[in-house]
């Protein structure tokens, strides 16, 4: 039995809790959240990590779902208590902090899993498998897009770019990690973006990356759209693999809001027996159980942070940025 303590009862904490609830060998023992209005787990909400440690006699895994700038603080607390850690992406707000997180976990000899969930989305997994098996030959150009409306977080922390890192560090990092999984290391990156400057509740970025293996990648990140979509397109010597969640929809509800059948919004879904968050968390727990390495390492997560921050630096300097 895994006894999991979730840190942060916001959007991600809730999604993780729902996934854990489906696992027979997992018990979520509680949630730590500094904000008491924000509770969805009666009686099991703790206002501090220390309070949770004192109250609960068994905790095996700490699952960190607080805003990015607090990841380091909770990693340290969990590692000090010799507890294994799952941490939401991005690993940290800066490379230094990310490195500190990794070093601390090594020092204290606890496992650290970073939730780069795209590696558990079947559409992405399958695209990589097709690429790897040579279905479309050598890849020339890869395109990804991740677009949605401006995220809502507690106290609007996403609007504070010092905290969230904006659309690049928070959203595009998913695609950065996925592309690195497919194509290896990045040589240089060039980007343009708003960096949240001048526009309220809007961020947008266009990034070009050149991989060491020659692949040219183009990434769009948007908190400027009114509905969510994710897309990719790989062009190879002998074919193209493309996916667009806004077009490739297996089920979509259009509920009438009045008798004339007007109004209402379309709600698309992609039903699966187990969702990608379940698959991700299941994998991390299996890694603990079987003492094997995860599909995505903490080092992978740190490099993704490094690339995302390089893109942000490229925007600031208007120059391409080489990764070392």
């Amino acid at each position: 039995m895994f006894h999991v303590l979730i840190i942060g009862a916001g959007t991600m904490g809730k999604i993780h809790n729902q996934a854990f609830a489906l696992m027979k060998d997992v018990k979520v023992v509680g949630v730590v959240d500094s904000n008491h209005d924000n509770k969805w787990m009666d009686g099991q909400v703790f206002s501090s990590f220390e309070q949770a440690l004192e109250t609960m006699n068994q905790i095996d895994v700490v699952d960190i779902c607080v805003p990015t700038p607090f990841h380091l603080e909770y990693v340290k607390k969990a590692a000090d208590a010799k507890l294994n850690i799952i941490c939401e992406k991005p690993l940290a707000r800066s490379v230094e902090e990310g490195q500190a997180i990794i070093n601390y976990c090594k020092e204290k000899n606890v496992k650290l899993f970073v939730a780069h969930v795209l590696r558990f989305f079947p559409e992405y997994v399958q695209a990589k498998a097709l690429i790897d098996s040579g279905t479309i030959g050598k890849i020339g150009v890869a395109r990804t897009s991740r677009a949605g409306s401006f995220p809502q977080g507690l106290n609007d922390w996403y609007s504070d770019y010092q905290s969230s890192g904006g659309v690049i560090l928070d959203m595009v990092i998913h695609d950065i990690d996925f592309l690195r999984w497919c194509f290896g290391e990045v040589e240089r990156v060039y980007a343009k973006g708003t960096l949240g400057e001048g526009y309220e509740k809007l961020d947008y970025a266009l990034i070009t990356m050149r991989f060491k293996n020659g692949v040219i990648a183009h990434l769009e990140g948007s908190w400027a759209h009114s509905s969510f979509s994710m897309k990719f397109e790989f062009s190879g010597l002998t074919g193209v693999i493309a996916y667009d969640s806004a077009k490739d929809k297996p089920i979509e509800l259009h509920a009438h809001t009045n008798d004339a059948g007007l109004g209402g919004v379309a709600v698309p879904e992609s039903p699966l027996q187990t969702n990608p968050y379940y698959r991700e968390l299941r994998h991390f727990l299996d890694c603990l159980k079987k003492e094997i390495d995860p599909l995505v390492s903490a080092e992978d997560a740190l490099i993704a942070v490094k690339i995302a921050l390089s893109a942000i630096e490229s925007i600031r300097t208007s120059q391409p940025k080489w990764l070392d």
Partner: protein
Amino acid sequence: MRIKVGIVSFAHIHVVSYAEALKRIEGVELVGIMEEDRIRGPKYSEWFETKLFTNINDLLMQDLDAVIVTSENVHHKEHVIASASAGKHVLCEKPISVSIQDAQEMIDICKANQVLLQTAFPVRFNSSIIRAKEMIENGQLGKIIAVKGTNRGQCPGNWFVDVNKSGGGAVLDHTVHVTDILRWILGAEVKTVYAEVDNVFTNNLIDDSGILTMQFANGVFASLDCSWSRNATYPIWGDITLEIIGSKGTLSVDAFNQKLNVYTNKSGYNHSFWGDDMDEQLLRDFINSIQAGKEEASITGEDGLRALEVALAAYESSNDKAVITLKFH
């Protein structure tokens, strides 16, 4: 006023569509074509029931008002200059030329001879692009922040992949359309260009893939995928898409997405386009400008030159791995 037109060369793939459009426009006569190629010449003069000349001067000696130049890119200069010097208005296929100096010379000589020089940018006549421009001008998107564009296609092969005739591959071929549209829609010039360019999709030694990033003088940034990255059985030959980000909303344009989905045993899945014919509108516009005695074409030689500068800057950027500031600024 009846307008008499000649066509110089059937080298470019767009010319058949232009010639067919000409036939549909009332008051226009296709007087003859110039084609040196011994297969193409007889084929197209017969197809369009018009006279064949194997020398441009023989064509230019005919009673002509205008010439459409659709030769290989490197020959645009000599053909445009010869036509202008003979006092003919010119519609020149894109890219206007392969070098900035050549394009400038073409522009100057057309001006000196008081003939129109129009760059063939048919996408300005695509109805969805026109509608997008309208929406932006109406303020429906608020302030424009960024544009993500694509103009991907299949490798055209032929002389297009011979740099001695084309002057460049996908970047030259496919950068100019979207660059022109962006300049037109945004009413601003490109200030800087960054590009990653490569050769992946063809065995020829020519650029066939590229991602450009442009910074416009009005603060808008844009990216463009100009790659010949569609494989041979891809359902559509080419595309123009624009994802336009504004402070009040976003606008997605897929200019050729007025299509039927056609599935056949013979050729799998294909698109069949049913939207307006932008080539015909381009030619009607050119003919109208002549008839109206306009002093300037609606899409000028300078427009062609500005777009060419961006494509050439993309090569320079990719070579130097650096951001290029356009000299025009």
